[in-house]
């Protein structure tokens, strides 16, 4: 009995040593991959940052109004944000490769799935960024045009445009990542449809006088008295 126990312990010890002997080189390989990944990611970040500085992305972002939102969200500048994103995406890729080298059963499949998601996540971030910039630009253009033309509720118009573009960008980004695809499409359709329906009701009922005035001004013979400003030039 005692010998059987000792034999079992010896076997277990031998297995453990064998496992360690097999695992340690893999762990070392993983650490090397992670370290190389760190260096590569850092280099890519530095190169991208330099390129973006040359192309004056921060100025463009400032002009488009995206920087203001980044500041409000306590985020760094656009150049810094994109170069840091590249750093983390690259390094995470290397870490996942490193983990897959460990050969842990069951983890391989999950890692390869995650690995496949990385480019999609990067594209989704880009979509969100473009959506943010477009929403800011168009909503500000609408605000200025409405204020200068003396239209009522210019902020409402501006926020409506911003909201529609944001909703579109977020749903496109989620669609890209593949998160609950059906739900996202349905949610977007419902939100967008409800918004348009609400606008239609608001314009048709709440603003019927305004609608009548608009139609008369543009289609009818009765012209609205125009506000005349002194000739500027």
């Amino acid at each position, binding site marked *: 009995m005692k010998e059987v126990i000792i034999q079992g312990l010896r076997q277990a010890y031998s297995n453990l040593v064998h496992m360690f002997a097999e695992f340690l080189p893999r762990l070392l390989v993983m650490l090397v991959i992670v370290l190389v990944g760190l260096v590569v990611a850092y280099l890519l970040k530095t190169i991208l940052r330099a390129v973006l500085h040359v192309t004056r992305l921060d100025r463009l972002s400032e002009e488009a109004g995206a920087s203001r939102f980044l500041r409000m969200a306590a985020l760094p500048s656009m150049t810094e944000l994109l170069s840091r994103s590249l750093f983390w995406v690259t390094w995470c890729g290397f870490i996942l490769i490193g983990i897959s080298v460990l050969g842990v059963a069951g983890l391989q499949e999950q890692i390869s799935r995650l690995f496949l998601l990385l480019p999609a996540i990067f594209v989704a971030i880009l979509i969100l960024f473009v959506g943010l910039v477009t929403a800011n630009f168009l909503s500000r253009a609408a605000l200025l045009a409405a204020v*200068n033309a*003396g239209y009522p509720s210019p902020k409402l118009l501006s926020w409506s445009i911003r909201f529609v573009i944001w909703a579109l960008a977020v749903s496109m980004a989620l669609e890209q990542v593949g998160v609950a695809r059906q739900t996202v499409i349905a949610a977007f359709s419902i939100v967008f449809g409800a918004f348009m329906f609400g606008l239609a009701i608001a314009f048709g009922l709440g603003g019927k006088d305004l609608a009548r005035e608009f139609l008369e001004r543009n289609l009818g013979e009765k012209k609205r008295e125009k*506000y005349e400003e*002194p000739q500027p030039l």
Partner: protein
Amino acid sequence: MAEESFLADDFIRQLMSVGEVDLLVGIPSYNNASTIAQTLHSVEESLRQNFVRERAVILNVDGGSGDETRQVFEQSSERREAGHKGLTSLRTIHRISCMYDRSPSQGVALRSIVAAADLLRARACAVISPATTNLTPAWIANLLRPVYREGLDFVAPLYVRSRFQGLLARDLLYPMSRAVFGQRIRELYSDEWGFSGRLASQCLEQDVWREEAVRTRPEAWMAVLAGSAGLKCGQYFLGPKTVSPSATGPDIVDAIRQTVGSFFWCMESNQPYWMGRSNSPAISTFGPEHELSADGIPPSQEKMFDLFRSGVNELEPILASILTPDTHAQIKAIALSDRAKFRFAAELWVKTLYEFAASYHHAVLNRDHLVQALVPLYRGRVYSFLLENANSSPETMEAQSEILCQEFERQKPYLLERWTGKN
């Protein structure tokens, strides 16, 4: 000859058939069939009476008119004034018409005119608007003569103005251009002006023709270029001006986008020229330097103040990114004041404009948006001006205009400080 490549082959062929000329009169047109014949006759009459020995060409550049403007120009018969016994031209006055594009653009039209002037080696040129309905032969002669005989390179017009018209030019463009560029050109933005062949050649060498500021309002850029190149500028008093009812001109928003946008762009692209200038010497002026007519009633002011107040309120975040906190606070304070006691002081107006110019330079937001954000503030300033001057005489208004010019010049160091400082 440098820019002939962008000209159509047929246009070049017509120019080559004319040969070299002394004078060139350009008429940019777009749907001016009803007025262009009269314009053409005035130009021909002027050339016959005033430039008897000179070789001349009249060039119509059309922006794709849909009303047969070009046909009217080409088929309009030469008309000699009945009873005219004076000298008449000893040379043929050539006419050329071309379509530069299918959509109108003052900049593209001007580019065709200066390219033709360069190709034909014209010594003096004038640009004339067919929308001006009271154009007389004397106008053309007055724009060409200072260039052809006095050696000037840029001649701006001077018009008689009603007390309450042209406020953008009188309250912003003239005083600011005088302080910034040191050029006392009152009508920096006009539809008629004269220029030399030398200036035309210099314009052609510039790689700016695709810039929006040059495409929409090229005349101010041309004047600034002449000043920066050390060429001589002047202005000629032409008298009152009336335009065709179909050509009402841009509304206030478009006028500010075009003129102030172009002005700020000129500042941006000519920094070395204006940053070192500290004075504004008088330029050659033929006739009275200014003339305000006492006619005209103040326009409706109620809506103007409402638009100013709502603009300051609705655009608060945008204005906060353009103006300094102190200036922004002052504007918000006056927006809250009683409309009868409202005053937009000259000092605050100048400071506001200089901060807008500096923010344009630092590109704190999209530049077209930045210029549009100025519209409500301009309305506030005009409202204040109308309140103060409802019963003022033209002399008093001119005196106030001079005080405003001096305020712009006094605060120029502040502009330089904002311009060169980090935003």
